[in-house]
């Protein structure tokens, strides 16, 4: 992704995800914990994973067990950031393509998290988790994440519920879950939100729709074929019908917005024609997702 040049990444350095959850079990991130004790109070060990700050490796433990362990402190624990990227076939549509914008946004969230010493995991979703990048931390891993995101294909159906609820790494890990999707999921999103809340996740929902989905310019008698399911709908494209569709789209977006509001979920709804800079530096900021 050519968008991520040095200048753009330098701008992202100053941003941070605005999570509200107390994080437990993380390594030295910049997110403050509400746990007791001072900032440098030792808390626990855990095994080293690539990307961990090697300055926190407990060399004594290494000497004894010949394995690398990281010291965990109560203060400044790292946060688990999980980016759920919708890679169903429906995302590969629109002009500009909404899947590409979603991929770029996923990379942005990953970099912001890594820049803030958080742990990042990325999961590609369709009917299930089609692919995933295990949690890692440290900015050097960003390009690995970028490569991972870049090669993700768009296929299959959208099913947030069946995919996210079966994402095992999420279990028992508090953190922030970012869902990048069109939310055009036949099994809905409410159960998914409830599940993530149950998993003590702060949720950031970004709904990306294409201009064609927001304001279709269709005419005549059409047989609309679903790119995911192959189902078809015969519709006479009259101004009345198009007007009714736009009302339906608006109502659907409002419904998502209300659900998010009620469940304290940060929600942003954008068209794929928005530029990445505008999305990151204006919309995400205005939505309180980054600061």
């Amino acid at each position, binding site marked *: 992704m050519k968008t991520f040049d040095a200048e753009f990444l330098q701008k992202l350095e100053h941003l941070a995800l605005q999570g509200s959850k107390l994080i437990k079990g993380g390594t030295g991130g910049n997110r403050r914990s509400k746990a007791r004790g001072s900032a440098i109070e030792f808390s626990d060990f855990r095994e080293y994973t690539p990307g961990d700050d090697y300055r926190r490796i407990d060399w004594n433990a290494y000497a004894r067990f010949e394995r690398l362990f990281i010291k965990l402190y109560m203060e400044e624990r790292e946060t688990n950031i999980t980016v759920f990227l919708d890679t169903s076939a*429906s995302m590969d549509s629109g002009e500009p393509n909404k899947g590409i914008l979603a991929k770029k946004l996923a990379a942005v969230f990953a970099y912001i998290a890594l820049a803030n010493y958080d742990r990042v995991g990325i999961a590609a979703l369709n009917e299930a988790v089609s692919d995933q990048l295990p949690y890692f931390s440290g900015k050097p891993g960003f390009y690995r994440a970028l490569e991972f995101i870049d090669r993700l294909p768009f296929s299959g159906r959208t099913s947030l519920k069946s995919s996210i609820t079966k994402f095992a790494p999420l279990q028992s890990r508090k953190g922030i879950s970012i869902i990048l999707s*069109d939310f055009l999921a036949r099994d809905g999103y409410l159960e998914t939100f409830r599940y993530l809340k149950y998993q003590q996740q702060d949720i950031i929902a970004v709904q990306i729709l294409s201009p*064609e989905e927001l304001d279709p310019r269709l005419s005549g008698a059409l047989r*609309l074929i679903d790119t995911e399911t192959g*189902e078809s709908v015969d519709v006479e494209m009259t101004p009345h019908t198009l007007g009714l569709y736009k009302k339906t789209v608006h109502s659907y977006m409002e419904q998502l917005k209300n659900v998010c509001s009620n469940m304290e979920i940060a929600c942003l709804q954008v068209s794929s024609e928005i530029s990445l800079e505008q999305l990151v530096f204006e919309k995400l900021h205005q939505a309180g997702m980054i600061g």
Partner: protein
Amino acid sequence: MSFSNPWGLLALLLIIPIVLLYILKKQHEDRTISSTMLWQQVVRDLQATRPWQRLRTRLLLILQILAVILFAVSLARPTWYGGSEGGVHYIAVMDTSARMQARDVKPSRMEAARNALLDFIQSMKPGDTLTLVQAGQQPFVIAGPSGNKGALKQAVSEIQPANGRADLIGAVQLAQTLLRDQSENNGRIHVYSDHFPSGLENQDNLVFHIASGNGQNAAVTHVGYEIGNESISVLSRVANYGLQRNITLELKIDGELQNVKDVHLPAGEEVNVYWSGIPTYAREIMVSISEEDDLMLDNIGMAAVSEEYQAKVLMATERNVYLERALSLREDIDLYKVNPDQTPESTDFHLYIYDCRLPEQLPEDGHIIAFSPSSHEQIGLAVEGEIRPVIATANTHARSFYPSLLQYVEPEGYQIARAGKMNVPEGFTVLLQDEGENPLLIAGEQEGRKIALFAFSLHESNLPLKADFPILVQNLLNWLLPPDIAFAGQIFAGESLQLECFPNVSRIIVTSPSGRKYDFDAYPAPVFYDTHDIGIYKISQQAGDQTYTGSFVVSVPTHEVSDLCTGSEVYTGKGGGIFEAAASPFGKDIWMTAGWTLLLLLLIEWQVYHHGT
């Protein structure tokens, strides 16, 4: 209401494909989209409002059908004739002059007027009646009064345009008279013509319907000839009743093309075209315009070269210079003079003039003129006593019997010293009489013989000294011995012709241009009426073994019918109404209303289709 163009209703057939399009399932074009999830919701919402949608669909169908109906009705050009309640008596006057054959109104002025009259009959309400008057050479009633639309339409469809003039004013006067007789107070006269004649303004119950365009026409207005020693010269006259143009003029002799000339016709002018070198054996001369124009009828002019016959006249007189001079004016007369006591060698004379006593036994054939006759049993003439002096005046009633005999003759001022007091035999009419109504000149026919009797001697009156005398003699000779057996060389179509004939002729046969033969008894002199066809009519008179032949021409009265624009000015006076036939022949044309309603319907449909409400 009726339709000016009923064929426009064929557009109603468009309803069939519209209904079929609604019945047939529409073919949907495949289009792949990201997700149909929301579209399924839309379809469910649409189905939730299906009753209205069905109604809307049906409403669209109904609106489209209504639009087609209005479109068809617009094409058919409906005409509304007003809201009278019926019981009205109408008189329709149909102009059948030759000008109605003009094609500047399609298909012709006549057909446009006929269609309009048929529409009017169709629009008549129950209780309405109509009398149909045809305005031709003589106006006459051809149908009605009747409310039977079928019979009236049949009568209208049988009206044929004539080739002559039409007495439109006479027809309207006839209609007014009929209306007074047939209707109490609510009658109306509808005149279907191509012009509005002056003199009919300000008539409340008169409605004129004009079928007129801007016709371009040229006409052959005259064809005359002069027989020379070696050839015949022809003068033809061509008039242009339109814009400036060039025409090709053809001359045909006895049906064979003889000569062709290109003629330049300035706008509104008449041009003389001369033809010479025509052989003397020519009998039928025809000059025609090759180019087509809006009235083809008058593009042909004809003349018939009649044979000349010498008439034999026997005059028994001691001496009568006045009479001899008057007789000598006719070159086709061979005059034989005898003394009163001489018996003529031959009795085969066409005319006997007795300037003396009448013989007791009249000749077997031949007409007779006698001066100062005595009583004669064979004629039934009784002369008893004398009247003197007398002043002769014309009998005004005589003109109705013999209009030509006293033509151009002063009706009074003739002094007579002495005249016989004679009776008026059966079959005779008094031409001149004195103040006491004693006959001084009588004329009549007895058993096919024409007789003119003067009660006085020319020598005892100042009549021969008057300029009227030779005219009177020529009138008598023309009556007794027609210079041409057709008498009038040319008449206009629709006019009648009295067939004069030679003495001892028993049968007269007239052959029309179409070959139809008419057979008449020679006496009394027949009148030939069937002069509808334009062309040369041949006459054959049978007198024993001898046959006299001649011909006369029936032509178009170009001076009255060839100018297609005359009299088509719009009349805006009281009671009348003028409508251009080309645009709207009759009544109030409401197709524009239908057209606007159609547009309104389309707008409503657009609103329903695009907004659903």
